[in-house]
């Protein structure tokens, strides 16, 4: 497939892995921010190819995983209402709330539907004027423009039976929180290519300078990731800390201006709770006052719902890179994809699920079995 098979070429990938091992004079610790990259790394065994030269810590960039429990409970409460058609991207359906997940809500009569775009949800609202259609707007800067556009269009078209349950987060504040935490081990970042396609990389430049960490904007295929790692390792070896762009076929320094504009027209920067990381100041997006009519939290009065995370779930330490998923005491025993304690075991992009689904048998062989 054009633009895909080239970036999965085994020969090129192994060549890059060899270069990384040659360039690295010591073992470097890098974090890939995005869950899609985590998925590729574990699925393709990239961490295995680089063992000894680079340790990859899997960052907080899975939107499903960082959506706080109470926000999921709010979604479940809304989805259970008889007048509601609750719409979501597919991988939110199995994320456990305090008591159940969206699949269970559906089995009890809730109208829960998977959509591929928030604009499909808006269309559902137009076609079902006697129903309240709610879209679960989660994600990073990548999904924010389309979600903003849906709200914008709803107002333009005068569609009043549409609202969004917003749990948007942004990457740079999370990187700052990680870098400022006393137990930080991360020496360089692979920034998420798709987030930067929208936002560009100017906001990462002050971070690289202030915290003296290389940041490489990186794509999602094995060759992309290995090339991104090589660029970061070269910077570390040479004592540089700059923002570089590996994902040149998609990302420009200024990003996608029209997308940024629609996001800032509809959303404001707000403080946000991250599952496993706690409250991070100015790390999220919320609807601006003028779009309050489209805020599902207010419309259905669910903002009072709160929830406590399971104490047995170490998602926070996994997301901060302190624990590898399979070092968590609950991994593979109490916590499995069929019965997850926390979100990183649910989403296909979550680090725990990736370890469980693709890596379970590597662990004993690594320990010499």
């Amino acid at each position: 497939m054009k633009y895909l098979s080239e970036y999965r070429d085994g020969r090129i990938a192994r060549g890059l892995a060899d270069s990384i091992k040659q360039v690295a004079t010591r073992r470097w610790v890098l974090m890939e921010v995005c869950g899609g990259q985590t998925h590729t790394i574990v699925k393709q065994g990239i961490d295995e190819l680089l063992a000894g030269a680079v340790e990859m810590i899997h960052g907080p960039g899975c939107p499903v995983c960082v959506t706080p429990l109470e926000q999921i409970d709010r979604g479940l409460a809304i989805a259970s209402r008889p007048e509601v058609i609750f719409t979501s991207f597919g991988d939110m359906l199995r994320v456990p709330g305090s008591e159940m997940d969206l699949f269970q809500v559906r089995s009890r009569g809730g109208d829960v539907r998977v959509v591929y775009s928030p604009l499909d949800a808006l269309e559902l609202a137009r076609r079902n004027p006697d129903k309240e259609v709610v879209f679960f707007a989660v994600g990073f800067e990548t999904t924010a423009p389309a979600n903003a556009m849906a709200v914008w269009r709803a107002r333009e078209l005068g569609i009043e039976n549409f609202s969004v349950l917003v749990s948007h987060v942004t990457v740079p504040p999370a990187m700052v929180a990680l870098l400022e935490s006393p137990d930080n081990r991360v020496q360089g970042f692979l920034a998420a290519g798709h987030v930067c396609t929208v936002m560009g990389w100017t906001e990462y430049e002050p971070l690289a300078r202030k915290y003296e960490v290389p940041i490489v904007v990186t794509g999602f295929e094995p060759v992309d990731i290995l090339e991104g790692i090589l660029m970061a390792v070269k910077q570390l070896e040479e004592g540089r800390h700059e923002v570089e762009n590996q994902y040149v076929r998609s990302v420009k320094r200024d990003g996608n201006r029209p997308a940024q504009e629609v996001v800032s027209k509809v959303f404001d920067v707000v403080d946000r709770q991250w599952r496993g990381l706690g409250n991070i100041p100015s790390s999220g997006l919320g609807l601006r006052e003028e779009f309050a009519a489209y805020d599902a939290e207010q419309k259905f009065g669910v903002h009072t719902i709160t929830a406590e995370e399971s104490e047995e779930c170490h998602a926070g330490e996994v997301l901060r890179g302190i624990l590898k998923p399979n070092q968590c005491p609950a991994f593979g025993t109490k916590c499995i994809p069929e019965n997850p304690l926390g979100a990183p075991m649910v989403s296909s992009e979550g680090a725990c699920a990736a370890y469980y689904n693709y890596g379970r048998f590597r662990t004993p062989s690594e320990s010499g079995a």
Partner: protein
Amino acid sequence: MGDSSIADGVNCPVPFSRYDRVQLGHGSGGKMSAALLKERFLPHFSNPALAKLTDAAIVEVAAGRLAVSTDTFVVRPLEFPGGNIGSLAVHGTLNDIAMMGARPRYLSAGFVLEEGLEFEVLDRIIAAMARAAEEAGVPIVAGDTKVVERGKADGVFINTTGIGELDRGFAPAPDLARAGDAVIVSGPIGRHGIAVMAVREGLEFEVEIESDAATLSPLVELLREQVGDAVHVLRDPTRGGVASALNEIAESAGVGVELVEDALPIPGPVRAVCEILGFDPLYVANEGILIAMVEGGSEQNAVAALRAHPLGEEATVVGRVVEAHPGLVAMRTGIGGTRVVDMLPGEQLPRIC
């Protein structure tokens, strides 16, 4: 005028029904039920055993062991590129029989019809079913229909049961996989699941992907003739795809399986749709390919035997059965890493980004 046209003999063998959709009355057991049977089903399914319309069909079988399998089909949409629920209900059950090394002989079919189902659709389903059964040379000897109220079913549900005759000496089974066996797939992976998904989700692509639904008995016959006892396991990787089928075999035989990613025959369009939706083709359903595990050394013969039939043209070795990591399926990735190919906890879900 009416009289004379009847006298002229309009060539309609059955009375013209005034209904264009299934009515609750068609499940009453009365005249409407009888008419449904005569007008819709019997013209397609005629065979001596069924034609008697007795309480049970009487059939002849060879002395020895029989393979029996039943399956219920609830696919949405009812019709998709490459088939419909009717042809699927025939192929699915016949293939389960064939995977035991048995020759399918008879089928039964039970229908749960939803009130309001258009006869036009039902007719196409029945016709496809009859065609699939005829191509496989297996008569549908017993049947049943029920009608439920609108909203209580999804158009039509079909259950089929198949009976097949087993040969002495040729009885592949999942727990017979042995270390050293070659793992062969008989054709391209993922077509059925993606064809159905594309229609269900209203996804349009430049290339239409057709379901691979087909009866696999001819491939099994070829393997029996050319490779015989060296065939240890046969399996049709339907729901859950190739990955789930291999996991079940690894589990039941207590062996490991090692796949080679680059060897998997995945058609470009299937790969593309999976990329868009975030699916893994290894977990997508197939209805017209089989997995064979054959004794090491016999794989070239087995592949050649399969390739002699149009359904097996793309047959290829995709991996090995190994002693290591019993119960687990591992895969050598395209870039030279390894990963586990586990069972899925539930259905595959499209990703956020």
